[in-house]
């Protein structure tokens, strides 16, 4: 038990973040985190050493999060392919440079709010890929395996997610005209 407790403490933040990014609801994210760790504990014997414990746990958390979303939107299918038929951001439009260290123009809570709002606006199928690859550090292969996507699909979604986020953040981080440091 204490060994498992160590694992929980090691990964609790990441699992909570992933659940929150997918469900976009704090209560659901708490439930998902609890269910994911309990499920992983119960199935520990089934865990095969051919994948890392962390990616196995992430897969459980992603599935639990999608299930929770389905429950919330009764009757409506929820999949990671949702809303991705958009060309928004695939060609950069905003080409103005950002201020140096643009995040320093905002205090911590303002910045967190901007980052939350911006990423919440991404289509689900892009957001999950970005979070797993760029925030949580999974490889392209691990992300593909976790989400049941092909490697080219992960790559294409990641590029579009990054470009869309960049485009949206540009509104806040533009270098102000006439202000040079």
């Amino acid at each position, binding site marked *: *038990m204490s060994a498992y*407790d160590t694992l929980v403490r090691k990964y609790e*933040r990441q699992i909570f973040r992933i659940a929150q990014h997918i469900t976009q609801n704090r209560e659901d994210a708490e439930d998902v985190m609890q269910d994911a760790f309990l499920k992983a*504990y119960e199935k520990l014997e089934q865990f095969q050493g051919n994948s890392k414990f962390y990616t196995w746990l992430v897969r459980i958390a992603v599935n639990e999060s999608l299930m929770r979303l389905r429950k919330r939107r009764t009757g409506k299918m929820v999949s990671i392919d949702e809303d991705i038929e958009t060309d928004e951001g695939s060609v950069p439009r905003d080409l103005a440079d950002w201020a140096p260290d643009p995040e320093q123009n905002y205090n911590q809570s303002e910045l*967190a709010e901007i980052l939350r709002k911006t*990423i919440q606006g991404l289509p689900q199928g892009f957001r999950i890929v970005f979070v797993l690859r*760029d925030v949580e550090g999974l490889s392209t292969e691990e992300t593909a395996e976790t989400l049941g996507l092909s490697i080219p699909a992960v790559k294409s979604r990641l590029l579009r997610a990054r*470009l869309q986020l*960049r485009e949206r*953040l540009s509104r806040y981080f533009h270098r102000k005209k006439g202000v040079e440091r």
Partner: protein
Amino acid sequence: MKCKEFLALLDDLIDDSVSPEMRTELQTHLGKCGHCEVVFNTTRKTIEIYRSHEIYDLPAGLRDRLHAAIMARCKKGC
């Protein structure tokens, strides 16, 4: 190299998964194209900002509730 070709390889450049020859080609394009340079730098910055800022704090007491739930499940036998 055209901007469209650069953009198709942007992720590979950011993730450092291009061959040395391709890297040189991409960097040559960057040296000549201000627009692509902005897109490259600000995309890299976007990733860095999301990686380095915690935007969802772990709710107070969640760790204890989780620990208690695991302990309770264990008592039932697992």
